[in-house]
């Protein structure tokens, strides 16, 4: 692999990151090539010692995704952190997928229940006194308010649960990123 090939593949793998970050990372590897060539090594030799550019790009992207989740706690950052960790291959997707799907499904169910209860409570509170004449209006309004409050707390619980799950996944992914999964195997075992 030539220097140009390496840089092109690295750049392609880093797509989606902010341009300044990509420029910095590519700059690091460009400088590495320049230093190594000045020291009398060949481009192919240096590229082989650096390792698989796609794999390096995956680790760099994963790190960026995790940082973003730590900086801004919103659903899109959570999604990018989860995908970054999965993309890293740090977690066996086949084992994790059923667990993720069931946890995700449960949390989604909670959200839907929360929205539904909020809606039902609202209808009960506003329309109840006009539609139901067998119960006192004040009781219906209070009951409606109660159901809405319950819906809100369901929603809050579901939010806390999803933040917690994302944190757990990020923590687990990080642990693997740091200790178990090298960005590339040492020279000679690189794939």
């Amino acid at each position, binding site marked *: 692999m030539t220097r140009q090939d390496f840089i092109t593949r690295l750049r392609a793998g880093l797509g989606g990151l902010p341009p300044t970050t990509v420029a910095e990372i590519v700059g690091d590897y460009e400088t590495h090539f320049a*230093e190594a060539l000045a020291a009398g090594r060949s481009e192919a030799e240096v590229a082989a010692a650096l390792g698989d550019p796609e794999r390096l790009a995956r680790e760099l992207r994963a790190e960026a995704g995790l*940082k973003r989740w730590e900086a801004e706690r919103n659903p899109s950052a959570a999604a990018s952190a989860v995908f970054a960790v999965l993309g890293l291959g740090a977690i066996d997707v086949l084992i994790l997928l059923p667990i993720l799907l069931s946890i995700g499904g449960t949390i989604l169910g909670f959200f839907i229940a929360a929205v539904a209860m909020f809606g039902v409570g609202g209808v009960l509170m506003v329309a109840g006194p006009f539609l139901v004449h067998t119960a006192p209006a004040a009781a219906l309004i209070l009951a409606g308010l109660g159901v809405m409050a319950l819906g809100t707390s369901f929603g809050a619980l579901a939010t806390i649960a999803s933040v917690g799950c994302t944190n757990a996944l990020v923590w687990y992914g990080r642990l693997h990123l740091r200790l178990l999964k090298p960005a*590339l195997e*040492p020279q000679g*075992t690189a794939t």
Partner: protein
Amino acid sequence: MAEAVQIQLKKGVLELCVLALLSRGDAYGYEIASRLAEGIGMGEGTIYPLMRRMQADGLVATYLVESPTGPPRKYYRLTDEGRSAYELQKTEWSAFSAAVDAILGGAQ
């Protein structure tokens, strides 16, 4: 199997090695990469993601120095936080490796 164990061991102590290297003086990326590749047989490319992570964690800071041969060199230096992380990790490592040695010695 033996190879997989070796890779994990290296990966675990890589950060400690970088901290140790920088505690003896500032160094630029290529220097760190070649020292570690030579010393513990680490893939050279692994250094750069690690350096970015350590920089993001506030353990190292960077500055540029003109190079006589090529593009400016990005030098890394330990921050105060990096220095205390080094002391802590070094103590942990010494205790851990002494404990492992004791067990290995005892098993013979």
